[in-house]
């Protein structure tokens, strides 16, 4: 898996984006823009960097992925299915009765979901607890935490930023989806977050700010973060919400709604596989 080329990774990302559109369309509710914007980061992490065994999801030595921005779970589910944790057909059960794929993720390690998330601002504390526990037990596992940019407005995150820095959690890497949108509008209008990089550096975190759609660059940033031993790391991913679907890109209105029949067809046309293009 770790041997995949950048081209192959880009194909994975395209496949994940198609799954996201299909599952949201079938669910009839959910968030579109965030999952599409995060797809390249999930692809880089799950198919190039993360130590995990989809066939043995409870493998104790696995790295941990904690999702704080639970509303982006279609990208988590699509990535887990793409990785082989469960069959892709199950994606069509999203948000439906008796599904393992809840509208916001519910912890179920047997299919790779490490934590329950939905109320924003909670994931980093959990990830920090896991990371400190691993460090104290001298275990080598890495802990990753996906966060949104809007949720930086939650106070609990700043409690956790202080905490992770105090305990020098070098085994913790946060990926922030800096897409500038949240439900009520643009982040800098709703409640300004800038300059996030300066804020986090002043909290004694190691900060990288990168293009969130360059898979090779994301892989390099994740690998660099692992080489920082005495500080927690954050990677600010500058992303385009709705990335890959031209009419969703950078549109606030696509933050919290799914594609309808027409939208879905248009979106899937946008997301032809590389082969189909050629």
């Amino acid at each position, binding site marked *: 898996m770790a041997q995949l080329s950048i081209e192959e990774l880009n194909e994975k990302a395209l496949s994940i984006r198609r799954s996201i559109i299909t599952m949201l369309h079938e669910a009839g509710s959910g968030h579109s823009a965030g999952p599409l914007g995060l797809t390249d980061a999930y692809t880089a992490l799950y198919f190039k960097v993360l130590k995990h065994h989809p066939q043995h999801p409870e493998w104790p030595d696995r790295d*941990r992925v904690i999702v704080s921005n639970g509303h982006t779970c279609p990208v988590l589910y699509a990535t887990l299915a793409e990785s082989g944790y469960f069959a892709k057909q199950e994606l069509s059960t999203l948000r439906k009765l008796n599904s393992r794929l809840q509208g916001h993720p519910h912890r179920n390690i047997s299919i790779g979901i490490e934590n329950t998330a939905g109320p924003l601002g909670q994931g*980093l504390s959990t990830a920090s607890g896991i990371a400190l526990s691993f460090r104290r037990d001298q275990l080598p596992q890495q802990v990753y935490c996906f966060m949104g940019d809007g949720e930086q407005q939650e106070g609990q995150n700043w409690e956790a930023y202080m905490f992770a820095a105090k305990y020098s959690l070098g085994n913790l890497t946060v990926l922030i989806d800096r897409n500038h949108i949240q439900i009520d509008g643009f982040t800098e209008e709703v409640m300004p977050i800038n300059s996030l990089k300066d804020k986090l550096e002043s909290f004694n975190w190691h900060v990288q700010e990168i293009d969130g759609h360059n898979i090779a660059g994301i892989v390099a940033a994740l690998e660099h973060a692992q080489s920082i031993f005495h500080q927690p790391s954050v990677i600010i991913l500058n992303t385009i919400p709705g990335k890959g679907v031209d009419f969703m890109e950078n549109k606030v209105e696509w933050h919290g709604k799914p594609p309808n029949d027409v939208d879905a067809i248009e979106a899937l046309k946008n997301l032809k596989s590389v082969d189909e293009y050629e």
Partner: protein
Amino acid sequence: MSDKKEAKGSTRDGFGHGLVEAAEKNTEVVGLCADLTESTKMHWFAEQFPQRYVQVGVAEQNLAGVAAGFAMTGKKAFCASYAAFHPGNSWGVIRTSICYNNLPVVIVGGHSGLGTGPDGATHQALEDVAIMQVLPNMTVVVPCDEEEARKATLALAELKTPAYLRTSKHTVSAITTRDTPFQIGKAVELKKGSEVTLIACGDVVEQALIAAEELSQQDISVGVLNMHTIKPLDVSAVLKAATESKVLITIENHQVFGGLGTVVSEVLAQYSPNPGLRFRVMAVQDTFAESGSGEELFEKFGLSAKHIVRMVEGCLK
């Protein structure tokens, strides 16, 4: 209870000693605190097991979340602060990160109730049982004295699911002994009685016992049931008391809504076998209290033995 000269103790002391014992027995026990390590009595644990103690600073939401993280790695986490802040400030994190994940975390809410005294109403948590008992997967334990708090801590250390342990700084006489049985969800009959049953929890169990003694001088036979577990409630003990008594009174150091009185009411309203039963709830009556000593506040807010005696007498008229 006969030996009133016995040294007094608090449930927070019992927690502190219990945690050290639990940690000695189980190397996976960890303790986390939000800048109140000594006054929650986690400091004995912290001194003995510094590598298993985590200081999170004044940050109760993070306290609950970090505890959830430790629990996800197989640890048994105890996270303590004052109940007014934890679960007071951390409820949403407890709900989603701990309860929905169904993790083995014990939330320890110290300085609960009027016994918090001079600090005043800001610090006297009187709503914590209500907001904890409504959470799925949650166990709620309110021990009555130091020894019971020690045993409760040891019992909760074995639990694989979330729990709330309510402690207090208020000191009471020893009510239970090393030999008193303690089982989560199983009420303890402290005194047998035929006419009246007082069902109490926490540091006002002492007041119930004093009242029962006084009433026995008037030839009124009063039993005292220590309902240390609010959830899961010992329903059969409640129904037995309701069957055998003419008067049933609950007493708790908590708001009248959502605590012991509420859960017992729910059982009686649905299943009471005794239509002639007189039932009363003694609790803080939907108000904030104020500064004062614990005893003064019990008196002013209606939870002292004197008030209990008066309530029983009124019910028997």
